[in-house]
C-alpha cells in the first residue's frame, strides 16, 4: 500500500474547512483510505532552514493510482463530499498536432510510446513538487520500478517537434543528461550512473541490450533515454509553461493508465482547467498509430438487481446513480432496461474492471457501516475437522498428558540442519529447496521435525533438565508424480534431553502413543489380533550405534516402517551445541489414518 504525504493546511483549504485529526481519520475511513499519521505534533524535519509544515500521511489502496498525489486526493474527497462537480476532461484540437514518430527497432527493447501536452500550465513550488512526486510514485508502483513504464517530462519550448522514438546502439546516442554539464554516449552514461543512488538501480533494464530506446526532437536533441534519464536541454522548471509528457512502455495497458493519471491530475493547472493537448503517435509497423492520451470515459453497464442483492439494499436506479456520483462516476438509468444503469467510468478510475467494482463503490458511498446487517442463512453445512488434524490432535493430547511439552519450531531450516548435522546425506530427491531466501536459516523445507526440536533445546539450555518436548506437524518431500511436485507428510517427533540418555523414556512414550492408537506391541512369534507394531535394531548414523530402532507397524496385514528412535549420535549433539545426551523419536502418523 503506497503512503502519500500531503500538506495538511493546503489539503484542508482545498476541502474548504478544518478537520480535527479524528474527524479527518473518520472521513478517510469511510472513503477507504487510511490516515497513517498527522505530523502536527511530531518532530518535523528542517529543510533549508525552514521546518516542514504539518503533513498528513495517507495510505492509499494499491489500485487507486488516481490517489497517488495531492491533486487526486483533494479532488476525489471533494467529489465524495459533494463539493466538486465531476471534472470534464477535454482534448484540445491544435492547428498542428505534435507527433512522435516511432521507429521499428524500438520493438527490440521498449515498443510502446504515448505523448501529451499540458499547455499554459502554471506551476508553483508545491505543484511542481507534486508533479515530480506523482511520476516517482507511478514509477515505483504501477510501473514496477520503471521496468514496465517510464515517464519523461520536457519544456516543450526548448525542443522542436516532430519527435522520433528510436532504438540505437548505445555508442551512437550522445547527449548531456539532466543536471549534468558533460556530454556522454550511452555506454559512458551507464558507467557514469553505475553508483548513482537513485538511478543506478534502473540501469539493468536496458544496459545489456544492443540498442537503447531514445527520443529525439527534430534537431536531433535527445529528449530522453527511457527508462533512465532525460536530457538536460529540455528540463522543466517552475517557469515552464508548456510541458511535453512522453511515456514509454513494455505494457500497453499500463502505458495507457500512466498517461491518463499524469494528464488528468495536472491538467487542472492549465489555463483552461482539464484541457489536454493530444500528441499523434505514428507507429505503422505495429499498428499503434493513434492520438494519445485517450481520456474518453469508458462506458459500462451495471445491473441494479446485482448491486442491490450484493449490498442488501433496495435502491432505485436513480438513487444508485446519485451514490455513484460521489465516487466520480457519471451514471444514468438505462432507457432500454429498468435493471441496467449506464456508467461512465472516468479516465481516473483505472481500477474498475467489472460491475462488482461499481457495486463496491455504491456500498462505500452508502457507507459500509450503515449497510443493513444480517446473519447469513445457515444452509445446512456440516462442521468437520480435517481427518489428519483429528488424528494429530489425539497424538498431541496423549503426549502432553504423558508429561511432554509441545513446541512449535519453524518449518523452514538450513540445509545443514536438515541433513549434514543429523549425519544424513542429501540424495537430491528428498527436500524442497528455496530459490531466494534472505538468510541461510531458510534454505529448505524440513524433511524431519528433529532440527526444530534440537534447536528448541539449544535455545532453552537455561531450563532445568530433563527437558521433554514434542511436535506433531508437517514436513514436505519432493514428489515428481504430483502436480505441485511435492507433498506434505504429518510427523510426530519427541526429544528427551537430560543427564541420562532417556532412551527408555522415549521408548515408553512410543509404547504409550501406540497403545492410545489401539496398536498392540507384537512380540516375536505372536500373531496380532488387530493393528500392531514392533521395533528392530537400526543402524543409522543419526543415532548412537546399537541404541536405535526402526518402528514397524502391521496394519491390515501389511508391514511398513513408519519411523525410528534412538540415542542421538554425539556428533549430532556437537553440531547442535548440546551438552547432555538426547534420545529422540520421529514417525509418520499418516499410517494410522
Amino acid at each position: 500500500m503506497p503512503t502519500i504525504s500531503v500538506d495538511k493546511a493546503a489539503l484542508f483549504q482545498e476541502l474548504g474547512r478544518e478537520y480535527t485529526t479524528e474527524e479527518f481519520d473518520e472521513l478517510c475511513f469511510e472513503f477507504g483510505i487510511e490516515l497513517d499519521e498527522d505530523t502536527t505534533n511530531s518532530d518535523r524535519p528542517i529543510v533549508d532552514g525552514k521546518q516542514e509544515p504539518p503533513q498528513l500521511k495517507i495510505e492509499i489502496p494499491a489500485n487507486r493510482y488516481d490517489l497517488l498525489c495531492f491533486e487526486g486526493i483533494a479532488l476525489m474527497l471533494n467529489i465524495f463530499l459533494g463539493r466538486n462537480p465531476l471534472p470534464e476532461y477535454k482534448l484540445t484540437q491544435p492547428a498542428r498536432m505534435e507527433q512522435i514518430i516511432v521507429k521499428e527497432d524500438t520493438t527490440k527493447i521498449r515498443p510502446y510510446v504515448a505523448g501529451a501536452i499540458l499547455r499554459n500550465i502554471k506551476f508553483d513550488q508545491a505543484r511542481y513538487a507534486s508533479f515530480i512526486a506523482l511520476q516517482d510514485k507511478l514509477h515505483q508502483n504501477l510501473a514496477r520500478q520503471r521496468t514496465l513504464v517510464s515517464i519523461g517530462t520536457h519544456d516543450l519550448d526548448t525542443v522542436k517537434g516532430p519527435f522520433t522514438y528510436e532504438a540505437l546502439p548505445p555508442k551512437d546516442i550522445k547527449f548531456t543528461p539532466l543536471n549534468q554539464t558533460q556530454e556522454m554516449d550511452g555506454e559512458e552514461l551507464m558507467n557514469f550512473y553505475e553508483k548513482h543512488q537513485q538511478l543506478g538501480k534502473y540501469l539493468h533494464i536496458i544496459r545489456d541490450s544492443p540498442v537503447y530506446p531514445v527520443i529525439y526532437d527534430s534537431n536531433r536533441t535527445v529528449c530522453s533515454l527511457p527508462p533512465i534519464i532525460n536530457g538536460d536541454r529540455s528540463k522543466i522548471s517552475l517557469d515552464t509553461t508548456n510541458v511535453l509528457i512522453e511515456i514509454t512502455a513494455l505494457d500497453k495497458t499500463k502505458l495507457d493508465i500512466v498517461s491518463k493519471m499524469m494528464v488528468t491530475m495536472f491538467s487542472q493547472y492549465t489555463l483552461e482547467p482539464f484541457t489536454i493537448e493530444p500528441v499523434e503517435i505514428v507507429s505503422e509497423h505495429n499498428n499503434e498509430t493513434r492520438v494519445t492520451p485517450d481520456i474518453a470515459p469508458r462506458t459500462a453497464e451495471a445491473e441494479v438487481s446485482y448491486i442491490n442483492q450484493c449490498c442488501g439494499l433496495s435502491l432505485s436506479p436513480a438513487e444508485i446513480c446519485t451514490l455513484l456520483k460521489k465516487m466520480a462516476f457519471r451514471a444514468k438509468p438505462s432507457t432500454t432496461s429498468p435493471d441496467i444503469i449506464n456508467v461512465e467510468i472516468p479516465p481516473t478510475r483505472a481500477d474498475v474492471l467489472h460491475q462488482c467494482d461499481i457495486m463496491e463503490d455504491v456500498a462505500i458511498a452508502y457507507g459500509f457501516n450503515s449497510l443493513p446487517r444480517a446473519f447469513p442463512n445457515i444452509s445446512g453445512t456440516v462442521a468437520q475437522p480435517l481427518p489428519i488434524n483429528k488424528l494429530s490432535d489425539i497424538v498431541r493430547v496423549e503426549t502432553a498428558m504423558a508429561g511432554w511439552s509441545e513446541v512449535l519450531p519453524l518449518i523452514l531450516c538450513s540445509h545443514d540442519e536438515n541433513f549434514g548435522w543429523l549425519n544424513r546425506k542429501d540424495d537430491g530427491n528428498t527436500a524442497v529447496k528455496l530459490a531466494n531466501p534472505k538468510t541461510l536459516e531458510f534454505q529448505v523445507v524440513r524433511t524431519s521435525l528433529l532440527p526444530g526440536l534440537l534447536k528448541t533445546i539449544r535455545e532453552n539450555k537455561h531450563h532445568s533438565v530433563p527437558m521433554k518436548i514434542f511436535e506433531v506437524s508437517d514436513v514436505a518431500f519432493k514428489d515428481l508424480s504430483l502436480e505441485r511436485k511435492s507433498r506434505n507428510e504429518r510427523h510426530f517427533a519427541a526429544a528427551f534431553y537430560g543427564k541420562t540418555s532417556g532412551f527408555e523414556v522415549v521408548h515408553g512414550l512410543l509404547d504409550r502413543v501406540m497403545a492410545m492408537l489401539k496398536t498392540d506391541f507384537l512380540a516375536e512369534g505372536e500373531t496380532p489380533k488387530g493393528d500392531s507394531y514392533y521395533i528392530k535394531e537400526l543402524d543409522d548414523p543419526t543415532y548412537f550405534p546399537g541404541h536405535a530402532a526402526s518402528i514397524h507397524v502391521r496394519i491390515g496385514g501389511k508391514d511398513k516402517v513408519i519411523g525410528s528412535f534412538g540415542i542421538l549420535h554425539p556428533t549430532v549433539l556437537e553440531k547442535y551445541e548440546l551438552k547432555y545426551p538426547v534420545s529422540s523419536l520421529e514417525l509418520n502418523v499418516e499410517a494410522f489414518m
Partner: protein
Amino acid sequence: MASDLTNQILDALSASDAPILSSEAFPSTPSLNVKSALDRLESRQMVQYETLEKEIVTLTAEGQEIAANGSHEAKVFAVVLAAMDGLKISDLPGIVGKENAKVGQGNAFKRGWIKKDKDLLRASADSIVDETQQQLLAVQKTKTLDDKKVVADLKRRKLIGLAKELAFKITKGPKYAREFVKEQTDLTPEMIANGSWKTAHLKPYNFNAKGAPTPSGTLHPLNKVRQEFRNIFFDMGFEEMPTNRFVETGFWNFDALFVPQQHPARDLQDTFYISDPAVADPPREDPPNEPNPPAQLKADNPLDYKKYWDNVREVHEHGKFGSIGYRYPWSADESLRLVLRTHTTSISTYMLHKLAANPRPARFFSIDRVFRNESVDATHLAEFHQVEGVIADFGLTLGGLIGFMEVFFAKMGIHKLRFKPAYNPYTEPSMEIFGYHDGLGKWVEIGNSGMFRPEMLESMGLPKDLRVYGWGLSLERPTMIKYGVSNIRELLGHKVDLHFIETNPAIRLEKD
C-alpha cells in the same frame, strides 16, 4: 541435637514463669540452633520469644595470644630487663621472635620502657603495667568495651573485632508443656494401621507457601489459541480444509485468485520461490487421497481443468465474465512456477474449484502455516499462521458478511467492530475489519474480509449467483495483542521460552 535443645529449653522454663535469656541459659549453643528450636516450639505455641540483638567485642587470634601471654612490648621489656648489661639490638629477634621484636621494640621505646645505648638496649624502668593485655583480658571476659578510643585503637591494631550476637528472651507459651512430643511430618499408612494418628502431632502446614510443583506436559500456547478458533468454526458449521500442502504453484497461489503476474506480492522480496523441484504441471485432478478430499466434496461431474486454466488466462489477458481483465500478456511459465504458499487462500481456491462440480452452499475454514520472504523482526517472521474462513451461498449480501463477522468476533470477546473499504486483488468489495481494543483504547485492525471477485469464481465454473465470502487474519497477531507478547519470536519458532509454554494458562478467548 536440636531435639534435645527443645527439651532443654522447656526444662529451663519449668522453674518459673519468669522469662529466661538464651545467652545466659545456653551460653555455648550457637544462636542459630537456639532459634530453630525456638521456632519449632513457637509454631506449636509452647513458647514465645523475643529476639535481642547486641553488639559484642571479640578478640582476634593475635588478641587472644596477647591476652594469654602479654603484649609484644611487654615481652621485649622482659628480655631487655633480664639482660643486665644491655641487650644487643641484633640479638633481639633471635630471642623474642621477629614479629615481637619489630612491633614490641617500637612500642617499648614509645612508652619509655627501654632506651638505646649505641648498639645496646637497656631497660629504663624496673617494672611496667601491660595495659594492652589487661584491656584484652577484660574484653575476653565481658565481651564489651566502653572506651570508644580504646576500641578504635585495638581495632586498628587488629586485636579485636566487632560482631552481632543474637540472644532470645523466652517465656512460656499458651500450650507450654514440659515435654516436646516428636512431630510427624505426614500422615502415614503405619499411623493409620497402628492408631498412633490419635496422639500424633503433625508438623504444622505452611499455608503461605505453594504446594509441590506438579510434573505436567503441556500444549503450545499458539496451538491452544488455534484450538479455540477451530472450536468457533466448528460451532458455526465449518469444515476444515486440507491445508497440508506447503508448496503451491503460481497458478493456485496467485493467478486463480486474479492476482496479476506483475503484482508486487509476486516479487522475489515477498514470495519464496522453489528452485528444486523446478517446475509444476498445469492444474489437474489430484490422485485420490492426495490430499484426502472430504467425502461430500467428491465431484459428481469431473472438473475440466484445461477449461479452468484457459479461463484464468483469458480473464487476466483479455477479460471475461463481464470483466475487462488486466489486459497484459499472461505467461504460462509464471503460472507454473512453484512457490511456498503465501496464504491459505490457495487452498480455499482449490476447494471452491472442487465445489464447481456440484455448486451448493458450503462453509470452509483452515488455520495453518503460510510463508513470506520477509526480513525477520519483532513483528515479522518468514512463517506465521493464517486463520481463514470461506462461506459460499446463493444471494449473500455485504451486510451478511458484516453480521457474520460480528458474531464470529464476539465469540472471541471482541464486541465493537467497524469496517473500512480496502483493496485486495481477489475480493470486491473488500473490507478491513477493525475491532475496538479496550486495553489499548483504540481501534485495531484485526482482519481482512470481502466477497471473492466474479473473475475468480466464474473462471472455476461456479454459477454467477453463488457468492462467496472470504476473510482472514493471522493467528499470531490477536494472540500477541491478547497476551501482551511484543515479539513474535517469543511465540513461534525455536526461540520460544519453554517456561512460557509450560506456564501459559488455558486460553479462553471470550473471557480473557
